[in-house]
């Protein structure tokens, strides 16, 4: 089959254009060799647009778009599209275009190239129809994205190494799980049929490994630290790019594989709640947003666990909204970092005076994530909460409501308040460059459009996996209850601020579960290394001493001046030699039996 492809250019071209991710990956490799910045920027913007066109073309004939090759006795399904992968594909391409505009000012071949390869791998992974193809793009996404972390400077290098290690581990677990699963299915690596969501349960062979692999990339509790470790340390543009793809690719894999798996409901609910407590005490606003990213992923993981049509629609819709509003918030903090030189809340404040447009865009992003009516999350997150309620998961629903108030705290109020308002830090800087403002402006427009009552949310809903499952977000009761929650949270903020109970931001490192490997694990490794060094040194002395003494003894016994030659009775050596001969004969005799 491979021979057939390479001997026939038409088949090769057909394969190349089959998966929209390939064209982006190719553009990425091309960028690595292009010296002209303008040419690279053209590719960075044009590749996702071309890929979006390919997604649209493939969506027109989903069955006909399927492409597979056979190699090494396995079938690699390079392209498989259904309504779940379609919306992921569109959203990734849209994020790619926004990121391209945001990074227009940056002249960096590594960023351009790795951003494209990374994005292309995510898109290609979404359209992969078997575990082996998914694994290849899973790992390519990890390998290409680490350069975006390392572009953050010297501080980012150790975080990048940790990021790479944990993502490679995720890939290895994915492959191991896939192999165990495929062995039980007569080596069938199919990654679910088109339109099939939740084709595995945790009892299936290899499923636990697959869930851990996906859980690492999704930021499950105790596996989440790479997000808060690497994202805030990446470059200004790198963080924006990173926030869109890795975790969302994993969400897609989770939705495809484990939709309706009960344990995900509770994992997701915990994921929505625990980052809230870290975000409230964190000083670095890009790390606050990383916790916020974790919290939003929790809503989607919970929706995947609920697994109903409404919940799956909610997951897909919230993915689209989240990629845009989270990208927007990271963009605004990136602009602040670029202009001020820091994103630490304790050093910021009053920036609305010099960055008014960025302030407005950040407020729109904050309103969107907090789910204010007429802004995107209002029409998306509510589907997941409604689904929890419909399934009488009231504790989970309560946790999601608690987390919604928490979102209002860390992303809705804290980020814009400490950066742009609060006390005036006296810093007067330039507004963000025009390209960043355009990208943030477009993202803001999308935040409004996705929730626009007259044609906006209807368009978003038409792209969902189950478009026939009608959900009406703008009911009087939904608007009223959501506004009650948000106004009450705002009142709590204003009240606690007036009572001087609201904590000021302080510079500090906040410990999280990564302490176990960054401090405890490292400490144990250092201790083992020190002990090993001591032990080896002592062993060397003992060994040296032993051989020296043994040699000395032998010399004393067997040398011409030794004990045997001088002092022993003349019959003793003969007796010993005879005894040795008998022993040897017995051993040889027994060995031959």
């Amino acid at each position, binding site marked *: 089959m491979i021979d057939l492809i390479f001997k026939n250019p038409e088949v090769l071209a057909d394969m190349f254009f089959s998966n929209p991710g390939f064209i982006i990956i190719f553009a990425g490799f091309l960028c690595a060799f292009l010296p002209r910045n303008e040419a690279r920027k053209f590719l960075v913007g044009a590749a996702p647009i071309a890929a979006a066109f390919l997604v649209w073309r493939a969506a027109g004939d989903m069955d006909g778009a399927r492409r597979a090759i056979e190699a090494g006795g396995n079938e690699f399904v390079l392209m498989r599209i259904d309504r779940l992968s379609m919306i992921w594909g569109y959203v990734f391409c849209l994020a790619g275009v926004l990121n391209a505009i945001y990074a227009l000012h940056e002249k960096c071949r590594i960023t351009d190239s790795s951003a494209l390869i990374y994005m292309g791998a995510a898109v290609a992974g979404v359209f992969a129809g078997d575990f082996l193809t998914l694994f290849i793009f899973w790992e390519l996404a990890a390998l290409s994205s680490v350069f975006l972390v390392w572009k953050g400077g010297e501080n980012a290098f150790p975080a990048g190494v940790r990021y790479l290690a944990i993502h490679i581990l995720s890939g290895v677990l994915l492959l191991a799980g896939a192999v165990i699963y495929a062995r039980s299915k007569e080596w069938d690596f199919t990654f679910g049929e088109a339109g099939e969501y939740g084709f595995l349960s945790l009892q299936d062979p290899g499923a636990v490994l697959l869930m851990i692999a996906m859980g690492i990339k999704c930021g499950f509790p105790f596996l989440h630290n790479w997000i808060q470790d690497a994202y805030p340390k990446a470059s200004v543009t790198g963080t924006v790019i990173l926030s869109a793809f890795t975790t969302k690719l994993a969400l897609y894999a989770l939705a495809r594989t484990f939709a309706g798996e009960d344990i995900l409901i509770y994992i997701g609910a915990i994921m929505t709640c625990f980052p809230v407590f870290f975000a409230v005490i964190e000083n670095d606003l890009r790390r606050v947003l990383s916790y916020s990213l974790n919290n939003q992923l929790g809503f989607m993981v919970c929706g995947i666990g609920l697994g109903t049509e409404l919940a799956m629609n909610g997951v897909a819709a919230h993915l689209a909204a989240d990629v845009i509003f989270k990208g927007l918030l990271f963009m605004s903090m990136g602009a602040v970092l670029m202009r001020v030189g820091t994103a630490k809340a304790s050093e910021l404040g009053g920036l609305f005076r010099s960055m008014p447009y960025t302030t407005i865009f950040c407020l729109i992003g904050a309103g969107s994530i907090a789910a204010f009516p007429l802004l995107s999350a209002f029409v998306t997150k509510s589907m997941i909460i409604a689904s929890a309620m419909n399934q009488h998961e009231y504790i989970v629903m309560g946790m999601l409501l608690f987390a919604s108030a928490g979102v209002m705290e860390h992303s809705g109020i804290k980020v814009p308040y400490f950066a742009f308002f609060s*006390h005036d830090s006296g810093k007067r800087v330039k507004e963000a460059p025009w390209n960043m403002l355009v990208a943030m402006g477009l993202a803001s427009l999308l935040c409004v459009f996705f929730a626009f009552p007259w044609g906006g949310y209807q368009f978003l809903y038409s792209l969902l996996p189950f478009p026939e499952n009608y959900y009406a977000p703008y009911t009087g009761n939904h608007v*009223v209850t959501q506004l009650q929650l948000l106004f009450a949270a705002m009142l709590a903020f204003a009240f606690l601020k007036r009572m001087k109970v609201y904590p000021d931001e302080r510079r500090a490192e906040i410990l999280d579960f990564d302490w176990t490997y960054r401090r405890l694990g490292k400490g144990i490794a250092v201790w083992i290394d020190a002990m090993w060094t001591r032990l080896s040194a002592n062993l060397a002395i003992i060994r040296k001493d032993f051989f020296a003494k043994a040699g000395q003894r032998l010399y004393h016994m067997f040398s011409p001046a030794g004990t045997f030659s001088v002092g022993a009775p003349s019959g003793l050596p003969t007796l010993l030699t005879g005894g040795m001969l008998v022993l040897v004969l017995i051993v040889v005799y027994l060995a031959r039996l």
Partner: protein
Amino acid sequence: MAKKPQSKKQDDHIHPFARKFLWLGDEKIIRGFIWVPIIGLIITVMAGFIFPHDPKHAAPWDIWRVGFTWDSFPSWALIGFCAYSFVVLSAEPLFRLLSRKENYYGEEEVPEVIIEPTAEVHHHD
């Protein structure tokens, strides 16, 4: 939340678009901000009587008898206020428990580079 006196040089560097919104930094406005959520909350709680919870599609805590109807209790407002306050009030003990000095992990803190010097502020790009 005392307002810092601004120097003439700082005022010169304020973005032209932001000049129309400098009142946002006014002490009176900041202190009066609390009325925005209070008024919003009063309106939405009253609106809750016009748009009550649907008893068939409501959580147990939404169904309370308030006035003439069973299902107009502003439970989401209560959840919002309590949850927000709990999160904020937990900050201090959590900070004491989890905070360490900035270079705790010993990964060299290199000062972040300021790409655009603040001295050269122009708002015309």
